């Protein structure tokens, strides 16, 4: 049933596509980190329309499927003159989707800062920008790094969805190999095992990081 | 079960009981025999021998970390002894006989023997999702198998006794610390145990609430028939309520005797030092 010769034949091609998967993961993660922070700050803004917009955006994006958001970016934007490659559309979609999750992470970190820190910054006559840059963010981000690490892993596992907008990452490669030979078992199993091994070992690393951070 | 009657206050277990020694030839309700307990390398209890007579009120005093709570938790089956045996009303607690051999007790055996014991905790441990009445009714109903009416009647009687009949429908979060602890006492009493453990029942309370809880415990003690193991830092209370005081240090019973003897003529230096800290204020 399982064909080892065939497995060895297709393995290099799937591993080759892993590069695309990994780079899509990291670029999308960077998007999520930046947009997530912007959303968090917008949500805390005193300017009501801005904070309401951020809140609405977060709720809407979090309650609708990533796949449909990708279709939206990939098929709707070109109608309005913005054609994107599958890679760009993919990392934008994945990044925006998870920016709403990361904004919650930032928020948790910021809300755990004791009010005394804000007051101290005021007493030292810091500008709001300085307060954020020098006092609040440096204290609120390190404790949430493990949570961010877990989201990086989650985003890595979600990249197969990008194959739906024809990005040739490992899942798309496996689908193509499978449809050529009418054998999906080996290709999909390789993909599954790859994800399992990589994400499980990274999550162990995150757990270790968490322990180290807690010890400090 | 035929268990040889024991002499309470085993002579070897203590050097300093002197004239307070009351030899009572009845079966103890609780018997610790050569009990030791270790957590890894840390030995918390060292070869403890201790008998408690039916109805006897024993107070356990001693410095923090000396093993008082651990001694009580072994009896409540919350912690397992490393070696030694405990008997309750003549029956092994942590062991049972299977085919003539002594083996570790199973849950069924523990369940049978544990029914004789009740416990009041330092931090109350009330069930937050149940009303006061249900906190007190739940075990009579489900563990003793009483009908709803019987369980409710018993629970209400008990709550009246601790002065909380008017709080029946409240939730624990709506009560003061002193009221919570009185509910916890009612909840334990309603099971009618033969031995009741109180582990520092007032040390989590604001000072002004300590009195009401101690009063309730005193009243229960005065009723007589139930044995009590009282762990406390309230020396006046221990003197008033206890028949016997045990001074505990570093996992051993250092000295024991009547309250009068222990407080007026402490023999060991450690007990003297320990008591002097209380006498200063």
């Amino acid at each position: 049933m399982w064909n080892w010769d065939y497995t060895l034949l297709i393995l290099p091609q799937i591993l080759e596509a892993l590069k695309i998967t990994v780079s899509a993961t990291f670029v999308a993660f960077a998007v999520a980190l930046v947009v997530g922070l912007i959303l968090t700050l917008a949500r805390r803004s005193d300017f009501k329309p801005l904070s309401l917009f951020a809140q609405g955006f977060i709720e809407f994006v979090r309650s609708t499927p990533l796949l449909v958001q990708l279709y939206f970016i990939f098929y709707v934007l070109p109608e309005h003159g913005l054609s994107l490659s599958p890679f760009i559309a993919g990392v934008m979609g994945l990044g925006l989707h998870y920016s709403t999750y990361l904004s919650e992470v930032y928020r948790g970190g910021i809300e755990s800062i004791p009010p005394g820190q804000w007051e101290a910054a005021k007493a030292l006559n810091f500008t709001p920008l300085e307060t954020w840059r020098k006092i609040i963010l440096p204290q609120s981000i390190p404790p949430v790094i493990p949570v961010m690490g877990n989201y990086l892993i989650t985003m890595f596992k979600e990249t197969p969805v990008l194959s739906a907008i024809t990005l040739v990452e490992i899942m798309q490669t496996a689908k193509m190999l499978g449809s050529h030979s009418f054998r999906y078992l080996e290709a999909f199993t390789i993909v599954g095992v790859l994800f399992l091994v990589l994400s499980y070992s990274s999550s162990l690393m995150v757990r270790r990081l968490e322990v180290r951070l807690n010890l400090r | 079960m035929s268990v040889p009657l024991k002499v309470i206050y085993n002579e070897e277990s203590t050097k300093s009981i002197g004239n307070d020694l009351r030899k009572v030839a009845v079966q103890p309700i609780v018997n610790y025999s050569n009990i030791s307990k270790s957590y890894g390398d840390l030995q918390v209890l060292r070869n403890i021998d201790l008998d408690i007579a039916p109805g006897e009120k024993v107070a356990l005093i001693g410095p923090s970390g000396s093993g008082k709570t651990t001694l009580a938790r072994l009896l409540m089956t919350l912690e397992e002894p490393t070696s030694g045996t405990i008997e309750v009303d003549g029956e092994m607690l942590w062991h049972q006989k299977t085919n003539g051999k002594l083996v570790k007790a199973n849950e069924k055996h523990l369940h049978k023997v544990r029914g004789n014991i009740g416990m009041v905790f330092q931090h109350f441990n009330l069930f937050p999702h149940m009303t006061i009445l249900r906190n007190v009714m739940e075990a009579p109903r489900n563990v003793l198998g009483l009908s709803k009416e019987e369980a409710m009647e018993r629970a209400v009687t008990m709550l009246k006794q601790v002065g909380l009949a008017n709080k029946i429908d409240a939730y624990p979060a709506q009560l003061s610390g002193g009221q919570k602890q009185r509910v916890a006492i009612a909840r334990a009493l309603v099971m009618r145990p033969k031995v009741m453990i109180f582990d520092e029942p007032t040390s989590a309370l604001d000072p002004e609430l300590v009195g009401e809880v101690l009063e309730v415990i005193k009243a229960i003690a005065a009723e007589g028939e139930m044995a009590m193991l009282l762990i406390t830092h309230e020396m006046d209370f221990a003197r008033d309520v206890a028949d016997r005081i045990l001074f505990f240090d570093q996992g051993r019973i250092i000295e024991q005797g009547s309250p009068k003897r222990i407080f007026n003529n402490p023999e060991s230096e450690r007990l003297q030092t320990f008591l002097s800290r209380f006498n200063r204020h």
Partner: protein
Amino acid sequence: MWFDILPSFWEGAKITIQLTLFSAVIAFFLAFLAGFGRLSKIKAVRFLAATYVEIFRGTSLFVQLFWIYFALPLFGIMLPKMLAGVLALSLNAGAYGSEIVRSTIISVPKGQTEAAIALNMTPWQRTWLVILPQALVMMLPAFGNLIIEMLKGTALVSLVTLADLTFVATVLNSSIMRPTEIFSVLLVIYFVISLPFTRGIRWIEHRLSAGRY
């Protein structure tokens, strides 16, 4: 205008909602089974539960669905689309749900179990009368979020051609080519379906923070 395409979504919406609800029920069951399994005294049970959870959390729903639908037939197991969808969704969400069950159960303070032991409750009674009622309340918001994740996950079944909302939209798009309207309407429909859940979660969280706990 856009509302002329609305009726076409009706059949798809039915499939999406059915898929979510069926899978949620099974996932809930699996979550308790695996959650308690991981807390079992028996090592083999703990191992089995942990293996299930790590496998289904270590890969994504996408890979699991494709594996069940395309790779299982090579073992002679050919599942209808709906069943493959429900199986993948519930196995996946069950693994996440088991973490919810496990973490809330161990977050009930130890003193609660000890009080239950002191009242001579059996292990069964400790769980059902004391631990679970307290854990369940804490689980509700997390389970609400999980259902929303499941609703979002259902969109993937369109890729194995099960005619859910997303599938209907892609088919419609390839025939009438009005992506802006079709995909906007599609996003809004998902949002509307999720609303009762997000509102429900918020209501429960509010009750919890204001309530007697």
